[in-house]
C-alpha cells in the first residue's frame, strides 16, 4: 500500500471514529429530547405540579366518575402502604380528600418517594392533585406510621367517555440515594 493511500485510509477512519463518538453523544441527547417531546405532546407527565390554590370549579352534581386507588411498593421497599378506600364516586368540580397510610417496618429511618401514575393516561390533565405526599421525599422514622392525605379534584371538562380514573402510587426506597 502506498503511503498516500495509507494516509487517505487513516484520515477516513478518523472521520468515521468521530461520527461514532457523535452518535454515542446522540444516544445521551435522546434523553432530553424525549422529555421535551413528552412535554409538547402532553404524554407521560411524570411529576405534575400542584394546582396553586383551590381553584373553584362549577360542581357537576349530575355526573359521577369513579376514582380508584392502587398502592404498591417497589421491590424491597420496607413499607406497608395502603389507602382508606379502594374506590369512590366523585362529582367533577368537587374537592375530595382521601387518606393514605404507610408504616415503616424497619427499626431505622427510611426515606421513600412515591411516584403517581394515572390511567387512562389521556385523562391525566383533568385530574388535579392539590395536596399530595408524592410531591416530596417522605422520611419515616423507625417503625413510624404516617397518615398522608391527598386532596384532589376532577376537572368538569373531563370528556364524557371517561367513567373511571385509576390513581396508582408506588413507593420507591430512596434511603441510600437522596440526591434527586
Amino acid at each position, binding site marked *: *500500500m502506498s503511503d498516500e*493511500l495509507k494516509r*487517505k*485510509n*487513516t484520515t*477516513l*477512519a478518523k472521520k*468515521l*471514529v468521530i*461520527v*461514532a*463518538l*457523535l*452518535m*454515542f*453523544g*446522540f*444516544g*445521551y441527547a*435522546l*434523553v432530553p429530547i*424525549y422529555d421535551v417531546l413528552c412535554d409538547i*405532546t402532553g*404524554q*407521560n407527565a*411524570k*411529576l405534575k405540579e400542584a394546582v396553586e390554590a383551590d381553584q373553584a370549579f362549577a360542581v357537576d352534581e349530575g355526573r359521577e366518575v369513579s376514582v380508584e386507588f392502587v398502592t404498591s411498593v*417497589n*421491590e424491597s421497599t420496607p413499607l406497608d402502604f395502603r389507602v382508606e378506600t379502594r374506590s369512590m364516586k366523585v362529582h367533577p368540580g368537587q374537592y375530595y380528600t382521601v387518606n393514605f397510610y404507610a408504616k415503616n417496618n424497619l427499626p431505622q429511618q427510611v426515606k421513600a*418517594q412515591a*411516584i403517581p401514575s394515572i390511567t387512562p*393516561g389521556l385523562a391525566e390533565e383533568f385530574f388535579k392533585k392539590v395536596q399530595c405526599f408524592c410531591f416530596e421525599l417522605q422520611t419515616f422514622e423507625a417503625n413510624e406510621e404516617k397518615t398522608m392525605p391527598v386532596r384532589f379534584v376532577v376537572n368538569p371538562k373531563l370528556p364524557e367517555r371517561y367513567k373511571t380514573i385509576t390513581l396508582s402510587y*408506588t413507593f*420507591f*426506597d*430512596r434511603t441510600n*440515594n437522596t*440526591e*434527586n
Partner: protein
Amino acid sequence: MSAVVAEHDDHHDHHDHGPEKGILRWIITTNHKDIGTLYLVFALIMFFVGGTMALIIRSELFEPGLQFVDPNFFNSMTTMHALVMVFGAVMPAFVGLANWMIPMMIGAPDMALPRMNNMSFWMLVAGVLLLASTLFMEGGAPAAGWTLYPPLVLQTGKAFPFAIFSVHMLGISSIMGAINVIATIFNMRAPGMTLMKMPLFVWTWLITAFLLIAIMPVFAGAVTMLLTDRFFDTSFFDAAGGGDPVLYQHIFWFFGHPEVYVMILPTFGVASTIIPVFARKPLFGYASMVYATGAIAFLSFIVWAHHMFTVGLPVAGELYFMYATMLIAIPTGVKVFNWTATMWKGSMTFETPMLFSIAFVVLFTMGGFTGLMMSVAPSDFQYHDTYFIVAHFHYTLVPASIFILMAAGYYWLPKWTGNMYNEKIGQLHFWLSAISVNILFFPQHFLGLAGMPRRIPDYAIQFADWNMVSSIGAFIYGFSQLLFVYIVIDTIRGGTGKVTAEVWEDAGKHSLEWTVPSPAPYHTFTTPPEIIPTEHF
C-alpha cells in the same frame, strides 16, 4: 462485468510473502483472507453454541410443565441464545464474508486497515468469552431478554456489569469492522471499478457499515445508562428519581430496528450475488436494488416504536409508526420481485447454493408478510410478546440470514479451498434444513395467535401439541446442521476434486473473485485488475 486480470505470479515481487508458520499465523495475521476465515470459523462455532441453547429451550418446551431447567436458567437461555446468535454468529459471519470477498470483488489487495482488522476480530472473541463467562456467575447470566429492558435487567446478579462490558466490546469490534469496510470500499477499489459497478454484496455491506457506525454507539450509550443507574445513582430509567423505563425502550429500539437490518442487508447482497449466476442472467434491476437497499436503511431509523405499540403511545404516534413501517414493504418488495425476475426465463440449475437462495426468497417473503401483519398497530396488541413474533423474526433470520450464510458457504468454499464440496450431501443438508425449519417455526405462528406468550418455560395445556411439533423440528434442524460441518471439513481435505478458477459456469462475468485461481492465492490483486467497462452483468 468482465475483467482482464494482470499476471499474478509476479516473479520479482520480493515483498510478497506467504503466511507465518504455525499457530502464530492466526493470532498476528493482518491478511484479509486469514481474518475472514477466523471470523467464519468463530461464527460457525458460535452458531452451534447458540443452537445448543435453543435446543435446551425447545427441550423444556417439548411438554408442558417444568422438566429440565429452572425458570431463571430458562430465561438466561432465551437471552443468551439471542445475544450469541446475533453478536456471535450472524454478524461475525457476515463480517467474515466481507473480509474474504470485498477486496476480491473490488480488485483490492487487502482491507484498508489490516491491523485494525486483526484487533476487531480478537476484540470480538474477548467480548463473546466475557459474555459466556456470565453463565457461571452468582445469580446466573442475564435473563431479562436480549433487549435488556429495565427495571428487570437491573435485577441481574453479579453478571450485570460483565454483560454490559461485553456489549461494549462487541460494539467496538463491530464499529471497527464497519470503519474498515467503508475505508476499503471508498479508497481501495481498482481503477475503473465505479460505485455503480460494484457487486451488490459490496453495496449492501457499505450501507450496513454506515448503519453499524450510526447505531452501535447509541446501544453502547443505552447500556452505559443502565450501568450508571445501577451503580452510580443516576435515574435515567428509574421512576423514583424522575426517570422512565419507557425511555430505555425508545433508545434501545432506535438501535434495535436498524440492527435487524444489519443482519438482513448483507443477506440480500449475497442472494443478489448467487441468484444471477445460477439463473445465467444478469441481476434484474441492479440500480433499483441499490436504491432499495438505501431506502430500507433510511426507513429503519424512523420506525423504531413499532416494537412498542403497547407501551401507551399517543394515537398520532401509533399511526405514524404504523404507516412508516408499512412503507418498508415497498423497497423490500422491489427486491423480491427483482430476484424473481432474475430467475424468470433463466437457464436455471439447482446446485446447493441456488437451492438455499430460492428457499430464502420464498421463506423470507413469508417472514416479511407476518411483519406486515404486525405493523398494523391495532392488531399488534394481540401479537405483541407472543410466539407469533418469535415465529416472525425467526423466519426472517433462520431461513433468511442463516440459509443465505449456508448458501454463501457452498458458493465460495470451492474458491476458498480449491476443492468442490460434496453436492449430494449438500443437497441432503438443504432438504433437511428447508423441511425441518418449517416444522420448527411454522407452528409457532399458531401458538402465538392462540395466545402463548414468549419467554416462558411452562405453558397452558392447550399449547402442548404444536410445541411438541416445533421441538421435533428444532432437533431435526439442529442436528442436520452438523452435515455442513462435515462438508466443510471434507471439502478442505479434497472434497470431490479440484475446481477451475471460474468454478461456476460463466461466474467470471459476474464478479472478479472468479478470475483469480482456486484456491485463491494468499495475496490477490497486488496489481489492480483492469476493469473493462461492459454492459452491466
